[in-house]
Structures are given as C-alpha cells and as structure tokens.
C-alpha cells in the first residue's frame, strides 16, 4: 500500500534526515513508527503525502509514485488522511463545518449528505453533541478526535498520525488512543508516530524504529519489545521504561 525505496532526504548540505529508507506497509496494516527525538519520524511520515519533498528514492502509495512530477498531489492527498500533533482544526468553522468542508468542496457532496456522514463520524469518536461547537470550546482530546473525524470524512484508505497524543494532557491521551484503536484493523491502512509503547504493543502489526534517519528495525511488536536486535533500539526501550 505504501512503499519506500531508498528514500533520502537532507536539510541543507549537512543534515541527512532520511538515510536510504526502504520499507513497505501492507494494506490494512497498522505500523507504529518510533525512535528518539530528532530521528526523522515526522519527516518520514510527511513525505508520504508530499508535505515534505525528498531528494532521492521513490515512494509509492497505492501503486502511484507520489513524488513523481506528474503526480496529482491534491488528488493523492484525498486518499491519505493526516492527523497532526497540534490538531490544526480550522478555528473559524464549527466542528460540523470542519468535518464537512472537504467532502462538500472536493467530492461535491450535498450539505445534508455531508452532515449526516459527519454526525456518524462524530458518533464514532464519541462527540455527537459537539457538532455545533467551535474548536476554541473543545478540550485537547476532543479537538484531536474531531481532527480524526475530519480526516475520515474523505474515506481515505490510508490514515497517518504524527504523535497524535503528544500535545495532550495525560488524562486525555486514553480517549484519543481508544479512537485510534477502534480504527485499527477495520481495513484502513494506518501509520502512527507515537511514544505510547503500550499502544504499539496492543495495536501494531509492526513496529519501525528510526534512528538518525536510518530505519534500524522493522519487526512484529512482540519481537521488537522482547528482543530488539539493534543496540540503539535496546537503549531506546530501556530509556522509555523509566
């Protein structure tokens, strides 16, 4: 579904953020991407929908080469939901309009149809009663759940999360993770950058470990947590435990 072939990226001449990354995410799979701060996780996940350009290599999403000059980025991005650490809800629109904007304007869906769909999505993230609210009236956890609903409104076959719970107060992490868990293994292909190792253990089909732009591990969670191959991964896990 998503494949990386020898992907390289530099910031300036000095800093190589992605170093020859080659990997594959299968359809319907959940991949958790972890690694120390500054290792390039955000950069990697943002190259998938071309929010970040790459310098060499090839990324293919659903058979399409995303960084090809001829690729239609806007069409491609409709197929890829993206959930940000900072939610990035549109503050000048109600929750309802945040969710219905893309289906209405991009898919030509009628307002009643889009709103009906939005209400279903809000029910799925447990926020039906917030349809009329504005983002400034929501808690962080609620904002992130609305952001997830907004991404789902385009029915993307793929959804990407970049540290969806890192900006949240601890008591709100659970509600957001529960929503993401509910999405996993429903057919949607998922990639999630997170430091929540419990989540990775429970939900991930595979865990990728990135360090200094190099993809050091690509393993089943059981294997990764009990028996990490690379010393850097061992150290990373040891650091997380306290």
């Amino acid at each position, binding site marked *: 579904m998503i494949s990386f072939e020898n992907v390289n990226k530099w910031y300036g001449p000095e800093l190589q953020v992605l170093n020859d990354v080659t990997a594959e995410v299968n359809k319907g799979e959940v991949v958790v991407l972890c690694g120390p701060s500054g290792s390039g996780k955000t950069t990697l996940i943002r190259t998938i*929908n071309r*929010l970040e350009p790459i310098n060499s290599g090839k990324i293919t999403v659903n058979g399409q080469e995303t960084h090809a000059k001829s690729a239609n980025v*806007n*069409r*491609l*991005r*409709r197929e*890829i*939901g*993206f959930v*940000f650490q*900072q*939610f*990035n*809800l*549109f*503050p*000048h629109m109600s929750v309802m309009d945040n969710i219905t*904007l*893309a289906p209405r*304007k*991009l898919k030509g869906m009628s307002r009643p149809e889009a709103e009906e769909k939005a209400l279903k999505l809000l029910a799925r993230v447990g926020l039906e009663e917030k349809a009329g609210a*504005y*983002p*400034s*009236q*929501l*808690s*962080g956890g*609620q*904002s992130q759940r609305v*952001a997830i609903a*907004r*991404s789902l409104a*385009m029915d993307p076959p793929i959804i990407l999360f970049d540290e969806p719970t890192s*900006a949240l*107060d601890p008591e709100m992490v659970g509600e957001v993770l529960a929503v993401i868990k509910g999405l996993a293994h429903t057919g949607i292909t998922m990639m999630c950058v997170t430091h929540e190792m419990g989540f990775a253990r429970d939900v991930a089909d595979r865990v990728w470990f990135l360090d200094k732009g190099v993809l050091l591990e690509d393993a089943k969670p059981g294997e990764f947590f009990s028996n990490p191959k690379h010393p850097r991964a061992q150290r990373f896990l040891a650091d997380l435990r306290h």
Partner: protein
Amino acid sequence: MWEIIQNNWTLLLVGQYPNGPLGGLVATLLLAMAGLALAFPVAITIAVARISPYRPIRLVAAGIVHVVRGMPFLMVLFWSYFALPVLIGRPLSGFWTLVGALVLYESAYLAEVIRAGIQALPKGQEEAARSLGFGYFRTLFLVILPQALYNSLPALIGQFVSLIKETSLGYVISVNEFTYAAGQLNSQLLVQPVEVFSILAITYFIVCFTLTQSARWLEQRIARSRQGGPGGRAAQTLPNPLATEPMP
C-alpha cells in the same frame, strides 16, 4: 463657533447637495469607503503575490509596495490627476480621481497588513487544508484569508482612518469633500478662520478617534476569542498580527 455650525451645518455635512454636488463630511466618508472597498481586492491580490511560491511574482509585488510606500500621497494624487484621464481615455471627475489615487496608495499599505495577517497564522492551518486535498487557491480562500482578514480587522480599521485623513488632500484638486467645504465656508465668512478650521479639526478628530477606539476594542475582543479554550492553544503562541504599524 456654535453659531457657525448652526448656520452652515448642511454645507459642512453634505456640501451644496441637493442643489449642487455632494460634498462635506458625507462626501469624505463616501470617498474613504469607496477607496477602501476598491483597494481591498487589489490589496489581497498584492498580499498573496508577496508570499507567492514564485519568485518573479513576489518581486513584482514587492516592487509595487515599495515604490508606493516611498511616495507621498500628494504625489500619487497628482499622478492620478494627470495620468488617469489619459490612461482611460476620458476626463474623470475629481471624486473618482481622488478615489483612484486612494486605491493606488492604500492598496500597498493594506496589502502589508493582510500579508502580516496571513503570515501570523500557524503553518499547520495551510498544511491541514492541503492534506485534505485542497489546492493552493481553495486553501487560501476557504482557510487562510477568512482567518487572516478577521485577525487583521483592527489594523484594517486603522488603515481606514488613514484613508479618511488622506481624502483631505482632495482639496488641492478641488474635490468636494469636508476640507473643501470648510474652505468655502471660510471664504464666505472671511473673518473667522480659527473658528472654521477648529470645527474642521474637531470633527476629523471625533470621527477618527471613534474609529481608532473601536479598533482597539475589537482587537481585545479578538485576542480574547483566540484564547477561548485549550483547543485554541496553537493559536495562542502566535505573534500578534495586529502589531503591524498603520501608515503615517
């Protein structure tokens, strides 16, 4: 002074209207509003061009802004007076000559206000819209501009105040506006220039001060609404887009 107002308030308010051309304070406000309304779309275009991903477009827009900002308004007014009729191929009334000059001049300043408003938005707003599949212009019109314009509303009012003050220079090309009406009145009364021009000054002050105060009030209201709740935390870390200086 009170007597002067009592006897001449229609001249000061609307000029010779309805028996002659509209003038006075009402014409001043109309001039400023027409200038603002017409300058607005031009300013948005320049602002967007200033931050275009294409360098040549950026350079042209920056050129326009810097040239205009480097000129006194009176210069622009003369240019408009002599060049506009040639450009459009027919004579132009004083009213529209002045509006033309205001649009040319104010577009550059308004553009900078709007550009600051756009650049003060968190990058994530654009990214979120683009990630959903919106293109450059739809992102601009659906997500970026509504927020940028709302946030820069106080600065835009400040710019409107400048416009009102600039209309007084219409006097030099005999546009019927407030200052012109006061000039007429002064030549009628002959012996009370201090009183007449005090009325003029006080009225300008009241109008402009009221607008400036309402801008300040709006600014506080917008700042408060930004800090609505924890969901608004991304917006709280913004630099203040209203800190842009209005023009002299």
